[in-house]
């Protein structure tokens, strides 16, 4: 039996750290990278007598998320205590939400795979709730002791729980990426996975198609999309092998080891935590009146799905182009500015440049689009100069490289300065092109003979020679036309 005889079922839990300045229940800073415990106040340390006071900014970010996924933002939700003992949790409980979370339901549409084989899928969300993060334990050698840093304790998190709707690691990664892009788009989370601002847990099980859900194992704390994919692939194969060998899956929490590419058991169901949730008496129910929702709704940016549809409708872009350009808010903004400057009629070449040369160059330099040395105004001017035949597309690439290196300064006029000073203007004067062609024909009689005896390849060789003789500046369409006329082809 093979992998195809099994259906894979995956649900994801994502912890997104919210971009508030202060913690969810205290006025301590959430800035990353401070010296240990410099940002841990009396509330975070759970000193006797302290009380939590809820941060409006954290609630507002949860509302933004709820609105962005079309969920119900609960008019009344409740904070609960999740009880367990660990040194980086000084209260002995984490304040979270249990029975009545702030965000209920919602959906995210994902695109899985690339190109023609890609497909769309709607993933349903169960809920998203507000909670506080724990501190950090450092187990290096402190004379046989562990060191505790409580700077992270009390940092606001939105735990986003999906339904078990994903059927492959590719779908799980596509969902995680879509969610990552969305929380950054609506500016509730910086998405920095290295710093732990966006952490994934994957619940994985397999079953025969049509059978009831299999027993799941939960892979904890995956902090990159690559690890998410590798961990799920390993886990799925392990579960299938185990079942096909006549074994059974026991419910467990597992960890992924990136060095070996394997998952290993952290704890089984028998010693699973019993969190004994109950409503936190220190916190009253959170009420979100309709007016608050309306205000936040009015302040929401255009969402990626809507923008993508607009790019298709307004700019006649393909679905693939529109999806690529709205993969991040920065990229969408860059493209929008480029089209604004170049004009809607040039949207398609603008899209090609942003997704093609610009993306490749950024990738090579390891830069984000927001830091691109070539600005949208400059790219728009370049696209315009190609469209009005001042530049051939090939010479356009040269100009782009010059812009990238800062030639001509930061304004859009740099494009014209570069064309002028480097003499890159396309030759469209047919007289001038004709005389170059005559010279090339005279010097390449062999190729001319070959072409006349039916070798089409020889024609391209002559075109190449003409382009070379014009130092790339002759208009290729004109060269083709005139040459074909002269050779009587």
């Amino acid at each position, binding site marked *: 039996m093979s992998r195809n005889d099994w259906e894979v079922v995956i649900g994801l839990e994502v912890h997104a750290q919210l971009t508030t300045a*202060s913690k969810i229940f205290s006025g301590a800073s959430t800035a990353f990278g401070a010296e240990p415990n410099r940002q841990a106040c*009396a509330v975070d340390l759970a000193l006797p007598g302290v009380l939590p006071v809820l941060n409006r900014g954290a609630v507002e970010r949860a509302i933004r998320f709820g609105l962005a996924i079309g969920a119900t933002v609960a008019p009344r939700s409740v904070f609960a205590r999740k009880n367990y003992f660990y040194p980086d949790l000084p209260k002995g409980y984490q304040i979270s939400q249990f029975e009545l979370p702030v965000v209920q339901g919602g959906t995210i549409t994902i695109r899985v795979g690339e190109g023609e084989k890609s497909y769309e899928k709607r993933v349903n969300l169960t809920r998203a709730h507000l909670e506080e993060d724990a501190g950090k*334990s450092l187990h290096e050698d402190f004379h046989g002791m562990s*060191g505790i840093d409580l700077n992270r304790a009390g940092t606001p998190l939105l735990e986003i729980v999906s339904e078990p709707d994903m059927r492959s690691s590719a779908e799980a990664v596509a969902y995680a990426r879509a969610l990552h892009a969305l929380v950054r788009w609506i500016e509730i989370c910086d998405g920095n996975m290295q710093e732990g601002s966006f952490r994934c847990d994957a619940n994985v099980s397999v079953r025969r198609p049509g059978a009831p859900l299999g027993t799941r194992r939960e892979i904890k704390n995956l902090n990159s999309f690559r690890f998410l994919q590798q961990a799920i692939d390993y886990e799925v194969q392990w579960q299938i092998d185990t079942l096909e060998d006549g074994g059974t899956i026991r419910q467990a929490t597992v960890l992924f080891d990136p060095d070996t590419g394997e998952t290993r058991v952290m704890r089984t169901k028998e010693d699973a935590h019993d969190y004994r949730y109950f409503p936190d008496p220190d916190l*009253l129910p959170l009420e979100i009146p309709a007016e608050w929702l309306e205000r936040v709704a009015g302040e929401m940016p255009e969402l990626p799905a809507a923008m993508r549809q607009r790019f298709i409708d307004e700019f006649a872009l393909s679905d693939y182009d529109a999806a690529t350009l709205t993969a991040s808010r920065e990229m969408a903004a860059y493209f929008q500015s480029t089209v604004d400057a170049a004009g809607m009629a040039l949207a398609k070449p603008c899209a090609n440049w942003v997704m093609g040369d610009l993306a490749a160059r950024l990738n090579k330099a390891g830069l984000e689009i927001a830091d691109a040395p070539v600005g949208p105004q400059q790219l728009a001017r370049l696209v315009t100069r190609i469209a009005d035949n001042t530049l051939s597309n090939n010479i356009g690439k040269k100009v782009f490289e010059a812009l990238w290196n800062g030639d001509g300064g930061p304004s859009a006029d740099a494009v014209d300065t570069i064309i002028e000073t480097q003499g890159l203007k396309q030759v469209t004067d047919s007289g001038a092109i004709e005389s170059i062609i005559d010279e090339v024909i005279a010097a390449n009689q062999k190729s001319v003979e070959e072409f006349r005896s039916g070798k089409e390849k020889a024609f391209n060789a002559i075109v190449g020679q003409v382009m070379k003789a014009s130092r790339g500046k002759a208009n290729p369409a004109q060269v083709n036309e005139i040459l074909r006329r002269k050779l009587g082809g």
Partner: protein
Amino acid sequence: MSLSNEQVLRVASLARIELTAGEAGDTLAKLNGILGLIEQMQAIDTSGVAPMSHPQELSQRLREDAVTEPDRRDDYQKTAPAVENGLYLVPKVIE
């Protein structure tokens, strides 16, 4: 519904409370008394009554998102049994 001695010991262990055999027996009796009380209350029809999460009919006050706490690490760490490099030291626990 009543608890077993085993369940009492499990709850005690989860709450990190050490019970002697005698204390466990006493606790069992007390907890079963409370569960009996709850059983009586469950006879009441509460359909249509929203569960109460807080005894006061108020909603949560919110604070603005602003950093208001200064760094007082040195003060706080004066009362800690062991600190090093700004970290609180605890007996080694690895999960």
